[in-house]
């Protein structure tokens, strides 16, 4: 069995995880619906968001050059990274050049995507996560499982234990007798982190948006830790996916409405930090922007799949997804879980292993994600498009070169079955013959299916085969000129 189904099957048996997830996603789902309902032009904003992203993506080369010019003009330095390894190398070298061995980090998906913390650790540099949930994940030696709430799979008791047992190894220990009251947990984290903000000379961030017309980067957050990291250290290194570009401040305005309402169900984010290059005697002395590709231009080459690059990482699709709710975030095998992960990961990485091949099938195509998405990404459409890539192969772009990939091997039996079924369905006379045969032998049909169908009958009863198909009933009771076409009688 491929990766997602197996991982998801384990999670569905974890009652605690399912209860945590259900509670968290349903709470935020309801709040989000209320926050969205407050705006009577939501659908138009959504369409505007999608249109701005599409236009920007179509001319991404142009806007990226403008962005680079403006960042440079404002005193920043731009670096281009084709993949994760290159980005990690650039960041590691930049940190080394400062002579520092520690960095503070603002919560960022893209640094998870490239595995930056591990790369820094290998170079002897310690990276401290400063977002509360990321801190929990880091101290627990765990992986994030939600875009917005990376520690959504943990409850308060677990968090208290993690703080008590692990904080000392990473800096200031947890206070004696720490309880699991949210206020106490937050205070423990605050004390632990405050030392790091004040001591660190280097910070690493991502960005939610990059405004090309001025070279400005934007981070929205709730806790204020991000602002600390963005303003206190001497050197700021921002690693950002190239798709985060927006042309102008006017475009930005649309997203600053769409994002908080979809994400945290707030009218605006508690902290919106914006920085443009460097400024004398205020904020970081040095600013580096690492622009990351890592599969994005390849994704851009796919006309159907490229809409995944509109994503503003609000996590609304996760919170409404019935599959995510049962499978949990870790089953998706990347920092991008849920519906967006199911279409983004196989595109950014390529269909390189059973995990990526199984992700497009990690959906019942119920469409709740599409309805929730603030930039109207038709996730079901992309899922089906990628399924075709899995079973039929076809042309894809890998590192800028058009390549033909072969169908995934393990689908051979399914393909044969589909072909046969397709032939039967396209020959109604054969179909009718099959129906009659099945009806005649119906007393002998097993109540449990053999082979891959067994999983179906493990948890469900099969319907009974009727004695007569509709087709036969129609022919028997009202057969006449409209009933049968001459061509069909011959086939």
């Amino acid at each position: 069995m491929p990766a997602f189904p197996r991982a998801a099957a384990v999670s569905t048996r974890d009652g605690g995880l399912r209860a945590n997830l259900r509670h968290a996603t349903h709470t935020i789902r309801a709040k989000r619906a209320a926050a969205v309902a407050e705006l009577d032009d939501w659908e138009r904003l959504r369409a505007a968001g999608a249109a701005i992203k599409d236009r920007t993506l179509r001319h991404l080369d142009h806007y990226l050059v403008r962005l680079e010019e403006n960042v440079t003009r404002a005193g920043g330095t731009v670096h281009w990274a084709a993949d994760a390894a290159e980005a990690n190398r650039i960041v590691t070298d930049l940190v080394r050049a400062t002579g520092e061995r520690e960095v503070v980090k603002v919560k960022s998906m893209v640094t998870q995507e490239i595995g930056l913390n591990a790369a820094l650790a290998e170079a002897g540099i310690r990276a401290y996560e400063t977002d509360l949930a990321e801190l929990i994940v880091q101290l627990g030696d765990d992986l994030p499982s939600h875009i917005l709430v990376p520690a959504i799979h943990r409850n308060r008791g677990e968090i208290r234990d993690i703080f008590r047992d692990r904080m000392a190894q990473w800096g200031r220990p947890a206070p004696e007798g720490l309880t699991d009251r949210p206020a106490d947990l937050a205070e423990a984290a605050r004390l632990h982190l405050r030392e790091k903000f004040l001591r660190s000379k280097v910070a690493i961030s991502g960005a939610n948006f990059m405004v090309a017309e001025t070279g400005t980067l934007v981070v929205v957050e709730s806790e204020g830790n991000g602002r600390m990291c963005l303003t206190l250290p001497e050197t700021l290194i921002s690693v950002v996916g190239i798709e985060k570009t927006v042309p102008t401040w006017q475009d930005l305005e649309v997203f600053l409405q769409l994002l908080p309402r979809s994400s945290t169900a707030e009218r605006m984010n508690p902290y919106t930090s914006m920085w443009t290059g460097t400024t004398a005697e205020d904020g970081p002395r040095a600013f580096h922007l690492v622009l990351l590709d890592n599969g994005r231009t390849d994704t851009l080459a796919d006309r159907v799949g490229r809409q995944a690059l509109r994503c503003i990482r609000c996590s609304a699709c996760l919170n409404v997804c019935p599959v995510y709710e049962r499978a949990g975030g870790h089953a998706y095998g990347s920092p991008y879980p849920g519906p967006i992960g199911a279409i983004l990961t196989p595109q950014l990485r390529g269909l390189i292993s059973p995990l990526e091949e199984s992700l497009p099938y990690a959906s019942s195509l119920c469409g709740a994600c599409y309805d929730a998405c603030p930039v109207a990404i038709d996730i079901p459409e992309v899922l089906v498009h990628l399924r075709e890539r899995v079973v039929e192969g076809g042309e894809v772009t890998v590192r800028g070169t058009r390549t033909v990939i072969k169908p995934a091997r393990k689908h051979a039996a399914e393909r044969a079955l589909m072909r046969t079924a397709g032939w039967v369905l396209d020959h109604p006379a054969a179909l009718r013959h099959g129906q009659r045969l099945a009806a005649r032998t119906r007393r002998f049909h097993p109540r449990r299916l053999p082979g891959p169908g067994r999983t179906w009958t493990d948890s469900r009863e099969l319907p009974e085969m009727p004695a007569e198909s509709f087709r036969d009933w129609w022919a028997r009771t009202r057969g006449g000129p409209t009933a049968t076409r001459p061509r069909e009688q011959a086939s």
Partner: protein
Amino acid sequence: MRVGLFITCVNDTLYPRTGQAVVTLLERLGVQVAFPMAQSCCGQPQFNTGYRHLAEPLMRRYATAFQDVDHVVTPSGSCAAMIRDNYPRIAAKAAAEGRGDAMSEAAAGAVAKTHELTEFLVDILGVTDVGAYFPHTVTYHPTCHGLRVLRLGDRPLRLLEKVRGIELRELAGAEECCGFGGTFAVKNPAVSAAMGADKARALDDTGAAAVCAVDNSCLVHIGGTLARSGSAVRPVHIAEILASTEGSVL
């Protein structure tokens, strides 16, 4: 008005009663219906699993089978959604592969005239009281494709509310997917079963005697899950409720 019935491969093979109910209902409302024998499957299982090319002949077959009628009525929200939402996509992709025009024509013709049953009753015939009688407690499960692709809204409920003798029960979390999803149920059995179990529990809590929907494929999954858990709630297609009268209660 020439109306063709699209009964779908699942209904044809496993649920002929649903098709018979549609015929009874439409004829009672004065609609003359035809059942072109050349019809088959809409191609949804093939398309949704990634075999777009295998769906192409089925799309052409559909268009040809129904070329002589003004409207096609089908008792399946997901098949109607397949035709309306995906046939144009199939045609566009075929055109991009240089196999254009015939496909686009087939798609355009099919899309314009295909209606899910409750849509046809409410929008084309303009009726909500179809003269039905069904003396049971019933809850309604809005299937995903009916809800989010066809945007059926409250059409099915408006029809159900006018059924005499019926007592409608509200379903908690009604808009959540039941976990069927075609081949999803086979490819991700554990998640599908977990979704089905949650849906079955919500249905059981309504205390209704029956759950109805616009799609037998969701009902086979829901019904199978209910039966396995020993629940008394039984699945019934909405067409069978709307076709029932005092003389012939199902």
